[in-house]
């Protein structure tokens, strides 16, 4: 035992302490104390729920935007021809309606784009004149409004579905907000469950922790070991949860796509992959792992304060 026991302070005692990997890489026995079932299962379930809620939020937002874009007006008035004088007279009469904030002819290029899925590119096709009306507030009785418009613009065809679209947009916005609150609740629940799991791990390993503490391990080292294990288990569970949620999300996206006028798909590559909010979805496992890591750090450091 050369030098062992010589009256010197170890040259390593002052180094920044780190529990190394390699042999004895798991001195706390965390593979048993934090087994690879409970936390991944929790992370999987939470990520699955959060992904679906997030997908719902983004889907509702996309629908709302699309509906708002497609139904720029609450009410559309179709005149039989593009006669400019007739259009001007109709606009003058319509501007007398109560709560009307805007009335204008629909842009021809936009009209052509809206009709393209049904009629294709037919430049020579004569198009009717469409007047777009916006109201604030929206009319309570769209049918009564339609009758009144017909009375001031004889021969016009009135379409009031924009009123319903505006109501759907408001509903979609509420759905989006509710879904984001659901994501938040899911994450809070995940923190609570992870905390319980870590506390169980601490109880199972309190003797071992005491030994490491007596050997000079710092709170930071012990917390780092727990946090690393928890983060690993959480990210594995979260990735599995994301993988499980994707088919449902794609199905939702396809359903939403059909509401937006897209054709049903029959091949995997044609699924609406691009329609998913990938940055947010991919950030979810990272967020779950970070949440687990931070929860473990706080829980373990708090628990260790009881030691001298």
């Amino acid at each position, binding site marked *: 035992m*050369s030098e*062992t026991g010589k*009256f010197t302070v170890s040259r390593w005692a002052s180094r920044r302490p780190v529990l190394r990997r390699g042999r004895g890489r798991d*001195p706390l026995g965390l593979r048993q104390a934090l087994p690879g079932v409970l936390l991944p299962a929790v992370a999987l379930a939470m990520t699955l729920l959060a992904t679906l809620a997030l997908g719902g939020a983004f889907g509702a937002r996309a629908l709302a935007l699309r509906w708002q874009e497609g139904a720029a007006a609450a009410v559309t008035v179709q005149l039989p021809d593009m006669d400019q004088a007739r259009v001007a007279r109709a606009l003058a009469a319509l501007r007398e309606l109560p709560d009307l904030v805007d009335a204008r002819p629909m842009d021809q290029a936009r009209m052509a784009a809206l009709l393209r899925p049904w009629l294709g590119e037919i430049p020579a096709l004569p198009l009717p004149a469409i007047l777009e009306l916006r109201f604030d507030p929206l009319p309570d009785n769209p049918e009564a409004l339609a009758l009144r418009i017909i009375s001031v613009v004889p021969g016009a065809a009135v379409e009031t579905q924009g009123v319903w679209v505006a109501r759907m947009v408001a509903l979609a916005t509420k759905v989006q907000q509710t879904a984001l609150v659901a994501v938040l609740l899911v994450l809070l629940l995940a923190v609570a469950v992870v905390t319980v799991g870590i506390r169980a791990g601490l109880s199972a390993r309190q003797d071992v922790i005491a*030994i490491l503490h007596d050997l000079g391990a710092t709170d930071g080292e012990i917390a780092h070991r727990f946090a690393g294990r928890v983060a690993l288990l959480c990210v594995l569970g979260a990735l599995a949860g994301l993988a499980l949620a994707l088919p449902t999300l794609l199905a939702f996206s396809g359903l939403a796509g059909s509401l937006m006028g897209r054709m049903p798909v029959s091949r995997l590559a044609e699924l609406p992959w691009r329609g998913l909010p990938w940055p947010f979805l991919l950030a979810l496992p990272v967020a779950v792992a970070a949440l687990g890591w931070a929860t473990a750090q706080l829980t373990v450091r708090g628990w260790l304060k009881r030691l*001298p």
Partner: protein
Amino acid sequence: MAPGAAGLYVGRMVRFTSVGLRYAPPAGSSDPGVGQDVLSNLDFHLPAGSFHWLTGPSGAGKSSLLRLMQLAQRPTRGEVEVLGVVTSRARRSELPALRRRIGVVFQDFRLLPHLSAFDNIALPLRIAGRAELALRADVTEMLRWVGLEPKAESLPPELSGGEQQRIAIARAVVMRPALLLADEPTGNLDAVQSRRVLSLLQEMHRMGTTVVVATHSDSLVSAYPGPALRLADGRLER
């Protein structure tokens, strides 16, 4: 007292001044014995490089006194100075580095059952941040010193009591501690194993380490005479 420039610690290793210790009663405890002083008015100092027995009957407070020395407990009253640091005034964050300079051997060994003998001995080095390649030589040397090199990969439950205690001693000294504390290190061993453990502790003392060995066995003290701190009812007997 501060460590020397080359890590050599000279002079006073341990100093107790009017030290008292009382364990806080657990919440809801109605045991009248809990909450009373387990140590009272302890005044002594241990010079660097000394060997001391810590004796007294069971319940006299030997383990509590060792816990104060190994920084597992802070005194309720008075001042404990270990390796030049007054532990009662030290910040909590200062204590881990100090603990790495103190080796402790327990009666019940306190080895980690899921780690091999090698990994148990390597644990303090890993905590201190030693690289894996560098620590292998030191751990192997320790295993050779305690005569257990062939048992390097054995788990503690596969070893005899004496072998476990020798592994525990190897773990306690692998960091070349300035202070080595042993709490009833032969309490669970037969006579042959006890002699072997004592000779290892004495060898550490001969090499300059300050050693304190707690025992309630007067025969052990008689067999290995040396200065003793004698405790009775939490007080030092002169």
